[in-house]
C-alpha cells in the first residue's frame, strides 16, 4: 500500500477547508485512505496517509487526494480542457516527440506535455517528486512499466527525439554526477543505474531522449541529464515526459500528472507523439490523451447489490458527489470516468461509488438469514481425534513454521533431499525450502530445549509438501502427525507403544516392515504399514543426526501421513 506525506497547509488550501484529525480521518474514508500520523514540521505540519486502493494512483499525491475530498464537499466538477481524445485532437503548437522504430521491443511508449505559468515553490516541488515516485514505484512497477522525467522547457527545443541509442557510444553528464558517463557506465557507476539498470540491461540498445539540438534530456527510465533534467525552485516552464511498456497505464499516469499540475494553477500544453509503428490509439497521439470508455449501470442491478431501493436520480447524485460525470437515461446511468481514473471496468465499480457517495452509515446491517449447516473438514475432525489421543499419551503439542533451511531439513538429517520443494527466490536462509517432514522441527526443539525437564514428549499435526511427478501440481501436500520422545532411556519401544495405542484408539491396524533410513539407527527403524500402504516411519534417531543437531539425549520418533489413515 502506498503511503504519502502531505503538507497540511497546502493540503487544506487545496481542499478548500481545514479539518481536525477526527474529521479528516472520517473524510479520508471517501478515498479509502487512513490517517497514519500528523507530525509537526517547519513550514507546515506533515500528515502521513496510507492509501489502500492500488487501482487509484490518482490519490497518491497531495493534489490528487485533496481533489477527491474537495469534490466530495463541493458541487462543481473540475474541467481539464487540454485532453485530446479519439476524434478530438488538441493543438500541440508544434511540440513533437519523434519515436525511433528501434524502441518498439525495448520501451515502446512515451507521453509528454508542458506545464507553464507558475514558478514552482518548495512544497510543490516536494509533492511533484513524491507523486512521481509513487506513480513510478508502485503503479509503474519500480519504473519498469512507467518512468517519469521533468525538465526545464525554457532551455530545450522541439522536436524531441526518443531513440534507441548505442549504450557504449552515447554519453552525457547525469544528475548527481560531475563527469560524463556512457549509458553503459551509468548502469554500474551511478546509484540510479545500479538500482534500475536491470530494466534495460538485457537490450542491445538503450532508450534515450534528446532535443532538437542534441542536448540530452535523459536516459529513461534511469536518470535525467544534469542540465535539462535539473528542476529547481523558481522554475516556471516544465517539460514532463513518461516512458513505458503498457500504453494504458502510461497514458493514465500522464493524465494524473497533468491534472495535478493543472490543479496547482499551471497551464498544460499538449505534445504530439509521432510513432513509426502502430499503437492501440494510432500512430499519432497528442497527449495528455483521454482513452477511458464510458461504463453504464442499470439502477435495478445497483439496488440489488446494495440491498437498498435507491432511485436512479439519487444514485446519479451519489456518483456526482464522488466527482464523477454521470448521465441518466431512464433507469440507466452512464458514467464518464474522470481522466485521472481508469478503475471502471464493470458496472459494479459504479455501485461502489454510489455506496461511498451515499455514506456507509446509510446502510443498515442485516443479520444473515440463509440457513446453512456448519461443518469442519473431515481432516480437521480426524486431526482432532489424533490430537486428543496424543495429549492422552502425555505429549505436548507444538506448532511450527513451514519454511526452513536446507541445513536443517537436508544436511542435518543426513538425507539427499531430492524430493524437497526448494524455493527459487528465498528471502533468507530460513526460507530456502518448504518442509518435507516434521521430524527436523521436532529435533530443532530438542536442540534448544535441553534445559526443559525431561522426559520430553512432543508432537505436531501439520502440513508437509514433497515433489510428486504423478500429480498435476508436480507436488503433494500431506497432513501429517509426528511425535518424538527424548529422555535418558528413550527408545524404539516407547514410541512403538504409543504408536500402537494411537492405532488402537483410531480403530486401525498396522504392522512394521524393517527398513534402512539414514535418519534412524539401522535395525531400529520400521515403515508403518496400514492396509498394505506405507503410511509412515518409526524408529530411534541415529546418533549421527543427533550430533548434527547438537542433541545429547536419545530420541525416538514417528511420522505418519494422516491422509492415508483417516
Amino acid at each position, binding site marked *: 500500500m502506498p503511503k504519502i506525506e502531505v503538507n497540511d497547509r497546502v493540503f487544506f488550501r487545496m481542499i478548500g477547508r481545514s479539518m481536525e484529525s477526527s474529521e479528516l480521518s472520517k473524510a479520508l474514508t471517501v478515498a479509502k485512505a487512513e490517517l497514519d500520523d500528523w507530525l509537526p514540521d517547519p513550514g507546515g505540519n506533515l500528515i502521513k496517509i496510507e492509501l489502500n486502493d492500488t487501482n487509484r494512483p490518482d490519490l497518491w499525491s497531495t493534489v490528487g487526494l485533496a481533489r477527491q475530498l474537495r469534490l466530495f464537499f463541493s458541487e462543481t466538477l473540475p474541467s481539464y480542457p487540454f485532453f485530446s481524445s479519439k476524434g478530438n485532437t488538441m493543438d500541440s503548437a508544434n511540440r513533437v516527440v519523434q519515436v525511433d522504430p528501434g524502441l518498439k521491443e525495448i520501451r515502446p511508449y512515451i507521453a509528454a506535455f508542458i506545464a507553464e505559468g507558475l514558478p514552482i515553490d518548495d512544497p510543490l516541488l516536494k509533492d511533484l517528486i513524491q507523486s512521481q515516485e509513487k506513480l513510478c514505484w508502485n503503479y509503474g512497477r519500480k519504473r519498469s512499466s512507467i518512468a517519469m522525467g521533468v525538465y526545464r522547457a525554457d532551455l530545450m527545443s522541439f522536436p524531441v527525439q526518443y531513440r534507441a541509442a548505442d549504450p557504449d557510444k552515447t554519453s552525457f553528464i547525469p544528475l548527481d554526477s560531475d563527469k560524463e558517463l556512457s549509458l553503459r557506465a551509468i548502469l554500474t557507476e551511478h546509484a540510479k543505474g545500479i538500482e534500475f539498470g536491470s530494466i534495460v540491461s538485457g537490450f542491445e540498445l538503450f532508450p534515450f531522449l534528446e532535443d532538437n539540438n542534441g542536448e540530452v534530456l535523459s536516459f529513461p527510465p534511469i536518470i535525467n541529464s544534469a542540465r535539462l533534467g535539473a528542476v529547481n525552485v523558481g522554475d516556471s516552464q516544465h517539460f514532463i515526459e513518461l516512458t513505458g511498456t503498457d500504453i494504458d497505464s502510461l497514458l493514465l499516469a500522464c493524465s494524473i500528472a497533468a491534472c495535478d499540475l493543472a490543479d496547482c494553477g499551471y497551464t498544460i500544453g499538449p505534445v504530439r507523439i509521432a510513432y513509426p509503428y502502430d499503437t492501440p490509439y494510432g500512430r499519432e497521439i497528442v497527449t495528455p490523451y483521454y482513452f477511458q470508455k464510458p461504463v453504464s449501470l442499470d439502477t435495478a442491478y445497483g439496488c440489488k447489490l446494495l440491498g437498498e431501493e435507491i432511485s436512479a436520480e439519487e444514485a446519479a447524485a451519489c456518483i456526482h458527489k464522488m466527482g464523477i460525470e454521470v448521465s441518466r437515461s431512464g433507469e440507466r446511468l452512464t458514467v464518464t470516468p474522470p481522466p485521472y481514473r481508469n478503475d471502471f471496468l*464493470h458496472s459494479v465499480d459504479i455501485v461502489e461509488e454510489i455506496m461511498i457517495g451515499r455514506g456507509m452509515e446509510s446502510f443498515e446491517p442485516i443479520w444473515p438469514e440463509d440457513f446453512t449447516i456448519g461443518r469442519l473438514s473431515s481432516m480437521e475432525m480426524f486431526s482432532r481425534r489424533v490430537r486428543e489421543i496424543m495429549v492422552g499419551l502425555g505429549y505436548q503439542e507444538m506448532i511450527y513454521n*513451514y519454511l526452513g533451511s536446507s541445513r536443517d531439513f537436508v544436511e542435518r538429517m543426513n538425507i539427499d533431499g531430492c524430493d524437497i520443494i526448494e524455493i527459487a527466490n528465498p528471502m533468507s536462509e530460513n526460507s530456502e525450502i518448504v518442509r518435507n517432514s516434521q521430524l527436523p522441527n521436532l529435533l530443532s526443539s530438542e536442540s534448544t530445549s535441553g534445559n526443559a525437564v525431561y522426559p520430553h514428549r512432543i508432537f505436531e499435526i501439520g502440513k508437509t509438501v514433497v515433489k510428486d511427478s504423478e500429480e498435476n501440481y508436480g507436488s503433494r501436500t500431506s497432513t501429517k502427525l509426528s511425535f518424538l520422545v527424548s529422555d535418558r532411556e528413550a527408545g524404539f519401544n516407547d514410541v512403538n507403544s504409543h504408536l500402537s495405542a494411537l492405532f488402537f484408539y483410531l480403530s486401525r491396524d498396522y504392522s512394521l516392515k524393517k527398513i534402512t533410513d539414514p535418519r534412524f539407527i539401522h535395525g531400529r527403524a520400521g515403515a508403518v504399514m496400514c492396509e498394505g500402504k506405507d503410511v509412515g516411519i518409526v524408529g530411534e534417531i541415529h546418533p549421527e543426526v543427533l550430533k548434527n543437531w547438537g542433541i545429547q539425549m536419545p530420541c525416538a520418533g514417528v511420522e505418519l501421513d494422516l491422509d492415508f489413515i483417516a
Partner: protein
Amino acid sequence: MLIQGLHPLEIKLLLHYKADELITSEKVLDELSYNLGQCNQAFSWLSAKELIEEKSREKSIKFLLTELGRDYQEKGSHEERIFKLIQKQGPLTLPDIAVRLKLENREVGSAFGALSKSGLLGMNEKKQVVILDNKKLKAIDALTGLLNLFTQNEVVEKKNLSLEQAELISSLGRKRGASRGLFRILEKEEVIYVLTSSGLKVRDILLNQGITGDEIGILTPELLKNEAWKKQKFRGYNINIPPVRVLLGRKNPYVEFLERLKDKLISLGFEEFDGPLLETEFWNCDALFMPQFHSARDIHDVYHVKDPTHAKEIEQPYLDQVAATHENGWKTGSLGWRYKFDRQFTRRMILRSQGTVLSAKTLPRAKVPGKYFGVVRCFRYDRVDATHLADFYQTEGIVLGEEVNLKTLLGLLKMFAVEVAGAEEFKFVPGYFPFTEPSVEVHIKHPELGWFELGGSGIFRPEVTAPMGIKVPVLAWGLGIDRMALVALGLNDLRDLFTGDIEQVRLRTRKELCRR
C-alpha cells in the same frame, strides 16, 4: 502448623527424650530402632526446625572384628589351639602341629614364636614343642578375653576397654582394609544433641494431643482390608507444601485458539475448506481477476518454486473463461484488463500467498445458499520480525446466496465483530480488495487492543464469479485474528506463536477467543 508438619521419625524422637538428655545416633539407633538413614534424617529435620540443637561433639573410636578375628573367636586363637594340642598330645614338631590343626607352617611358626617369647612353650632337642611353664597362660587369656567381648557386641568402644586391652587391640588392629589384622578400627566424630526449649514445648503439645508418631501415614490396601484404620489416627499432612511438578500432555494453546475460532465459525453455519500449500498463479491471482502485469505479482512478492516450476494443466473450462475475462471481459459485462493473457505464466507454481485462493477454488462446487471458511497457512515475501511472518494463518471465506448484498455484507461483518471478537463497538469504512466491489472493512473496539481492523469483506466481482459458473452474488471475507491471538496467549511477538521452545510452550496459558 509445626505439629502437623512433623514426620513420625521426628515425633518419636521428640517424645523419647527428656530435657537435657544427651541424644546420640547410637542411642537413637538402639532405643528407637531407627536405621542410620532415618536417624540422620530426623536429626537434620529437627535441627532445621530448631527443635534440637548441638550440645557437643565427641570423637569416638570403635572396634569391629575382621574375618580373621571372627575365625579366632569361633575356633580359638592359634596360640590357644597349639597350647591345648601339646597339653593333650605331648611334644610334637612344628610341621606335625600344622598338619593336625590344619594350619599353615607359617601361621604355626608365628604363633609358636609369640608363645616361646612369653616363656610358655619351648623346644626340646628333637625339635619338638614342649610346655615350659604352665603358669604363663596370660598371653593367651588376654586375647581370648578380648575376643569374648565381641560375642555380645558387634562393636566395642575404646572407652569400655582396660588400658592393657586397648593397647593389645590397637597392636592387632588395622585402620583400613584389615586384611591380616583381627580388628577393624573405626574413628568417628559424633554430634551430641539435646532438645531445645521449643523442642520441649512441641514435645508437651505432642503429649497433650496424644500424638505418638504411630498415626497412619499412607493409607494402604492392607489397612483397608484389616481395618486397622479404625483403631489408629491418621497423620495430618502439611497441605501447604508446594506440590511436585507434573509434566502433562497438552494441546498447543495457539492450536486451541484456532480450534475455538473454527468452532465459532461452524456454529455460525460455515463449512470448512482446505487445499494444497503450492498453488498455481492461476488460482492464486488470475482467477481472482488480478491482472498478470499487476505490481503485486512481481518476483519479490511471492515465493517461486525451483521444481516443479509449472503445473501440467489448469482445469477447463475455467482456464479459458478466466483468460477471456482478463482479455476482454468475456460474458461478465466487464471491459476486462485488455492485454494478452499468458497461459504459460498462469501454470507457474508458487507458494499460496492468500487464503482467497481456496475461496476461488471452492466456487465451482459451492452450494447456494452456502457459507464456507478456511483457516489456512499462507506465505508472504516479508522479512520476519515481531509483526511479520513468512508463513502464518489467514482466516477467509465466502457466502453465496440470492439475497447477498451490501446490507447482508454489513450484517456478516457485524456478526464477526460481535460473535468472533466480542466487540461492543464497531464501525464500517470503505475498503479495497482487487477481487471485490464494493468492499468494506470493519473496525472494532477490542477491550485490550483498542480500535483495530478486524476484517474486510466485499462482493466478489462478476469477473471472479462468472468464469467459475456462479450466477448469484458472493461475499468474500477475511479476518485478521493474529493480534487477538497474541492477546489471548499473552504474547507480543508473532514469532512466539510458532516457537520451538518446549518449556515456553509447556508453561503458556490461554484466554478465550472472546467473552461470548
